[in-house]
């Protein structure tokens, strides 16, 4: 066999394999979306909950003195970025639920009996699905903040918002998928989701700036991944975005826009690397 022939064969093999992975991933993603369309309550609740935050919290602190908020913005504007991030975050936190139910009801076994080209397709389908849902929910909230008069980012700003949300969603999805395989059942998973959700929101700069917080809470907020997502988005809403802009005055130092994004990237890649051995063993 000639060398080029051999190469063709390999290319063909790869091509087939890629097609197979695409086919199975598409089919599995389609299933998740069919579930969502027929049972849209999670989607709706995922939008309603942040909406309630936005309206109630916005009203509660509407008269907060503007000079205490960074850049002298109104509280509604300040809160907007926090709620957008919170929406994406709590959406992505649910990523593990479908997989947990499939584990419990034995549907996962049905998938594992099939000669899947790669079992990553199962994980990939979940990531695609949850990313789409979280972004959709965030977009709905962004539209609401716009209607409430809290502004709209520039094109570059919009790109920053998208990239930031994507990286946060990836990181949180990885964590949730890891939990879905590590925990014994959906009750435990829901419990973890429940107790992660609110404390992470409060211990971030979503609802109040660091200058409002006691030192210990300030420390927590400056270690909280949500803060690294909120601040770039808040900056993107506030005006022209610059990667070198200092966004967080943390007790341990100053973090720039680029710093925030880098931290989120390292976090999402790191989390996927951490859960990989677990997924490999559970899907082996």
């Amino acid at each position, binding site marked *: 066999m000639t060398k080029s022939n051999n190469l063709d064969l390999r290319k063909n093999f790869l091509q087939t394999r890629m097609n*197979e992975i695409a086919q199975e991933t598409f089919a*599995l993603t389609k299933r998740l979306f069919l579930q969502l369309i027929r049972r849209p309550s999670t989607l709706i609740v995922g939008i309603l909950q942040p909406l309630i935050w936005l309206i109630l919290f916005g009203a509660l602190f509407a008269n907060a003195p503007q000079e205490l908020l960074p850049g002298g913005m109104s509280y509604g504007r300040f809160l907007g970025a926090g709620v957008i991030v919170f929406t994406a975050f709590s959406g992505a936190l649910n990523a593990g639920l479908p997989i947990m139910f499939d584990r419990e009801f*034995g549907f996962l076994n049905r998938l594992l009996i099939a000669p899947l080209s790669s079992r990553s397709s199962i994980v990939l389908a979940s990531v695609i699905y949850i990313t789409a849902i979280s972004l959709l929910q965030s977009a709905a909230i962004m539209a609401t903040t716009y209607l409430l008069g809290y502004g709209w980012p520039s094109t570059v700003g919009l790109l920053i918002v998208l990239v930031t949300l994507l990286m946060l969603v990836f990181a949180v999805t990885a964590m949730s998928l890891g939990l879905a395989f590590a925990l014994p059942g959906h009750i435990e998973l829901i419990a973890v989701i429940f107790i992660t959700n609110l404390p992470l929101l409060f211990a971030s700069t979503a609802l109040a700036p660091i200058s409002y917080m006691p030192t210990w809470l300030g420390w927590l907020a400056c270690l909280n991944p949500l803060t690294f997502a909120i601040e770039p988005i808040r900056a993107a809403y506030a005006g022209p975005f610059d990667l070198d802009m200092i966004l967080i005055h943390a007790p341990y130092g100053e973090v720039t826009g680029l710093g925030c994004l880098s931290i989120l990237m390292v976090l999402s890649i790191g989390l996927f690397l951490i859960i990989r051995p677990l997924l490999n063993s559970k899907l082996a």
Partner: protein
Amino acid sequence: MTAIELHKLVKSYGAVKALKGLSLKIPKGSLYGLLGPNGSGKTTTLKIICTLLAPDAGKVTVSGIDALQDPRAVRQEIGYVAQEVAIDKILTGLELLELQGDLYHLNKATRDKRIQELVDRLDMAEWINRRSGTYSGGMKRRLDLASGLLHEPKVLILDEPTVGLDIESRSKIWKLLKEFHKQGKTILLSSHYLEEVDALASEMAIMDCGTVIAKGSPEELKKELGGDRVTLRVKEFSNEVESEQIQKLLINIHGVRQVVINKAEGYSLNLVIDDEAVLPFLKQELAKADFQVFAMTQSRPSLDDVYLQATGRRLMDRELEVAGQRDFKQENKNSMR
């Protein structure tokens, strides 16, 4: 030719030994029945063949492929119909079949053509577009059978295919399995229903406590056992003393091979006799000793007798014995990924 070969399989769940060195050869083209009471290791065996479970030790070969070395190739060979049907209730039967087809990488045209064929063949047209959550047990099982067959596997594996089904669904599935068998497909099914294995299987193995205790065709197994079975009662409910007296009396009669007292059924007596000619003589002897015959039934040996012979227990009794011991919740947990 051998379709499936199992060699000295060992599998434990914690302290419970599910398989203790199980070896089995399933010939190509056979309709192979795996008979055994609940908890004898049937499901574990099937799950290992389907690559869902890895054995602690032993070898599994399907169509000559080592299932532990190349599980993906084995999955392609096998269609598996599990015991509890796991379906996504919110999808329609058709959507589930399409998903299944995509997971086996069928192209769309082939997939849809085969789905149509199976829908017709399994009589599913009326409800295939309804959400599967509304299906009855029989409908679910037919849907599952269809998804097991969609990629035209060489080997079809069914775990208790008719357990809990209505008679109509059961006979439909039996008929289909017989058809597949005629077409030369290899079918392996597990069952704890004697009549199911007896009616369907061309070859079979009896499992008990994680090992194979007998194998052959149902006919062979029964024939090997030989003799006729007689159940005798002198009263509707006898007692221990009385039944032991009769046992002593009967065991000495020429042509009576074995007399077992069945305590669970009112101290009735189970006899194995060489042939019918013994019966008149047997009645005479009973009359002489002043015992009346309340009821007497006679039958050819059944698979239950084969099981009884090998284990000293009736299948049903063993079933009841195990029923209380198994912790299904724990077993589910163990089988969860």
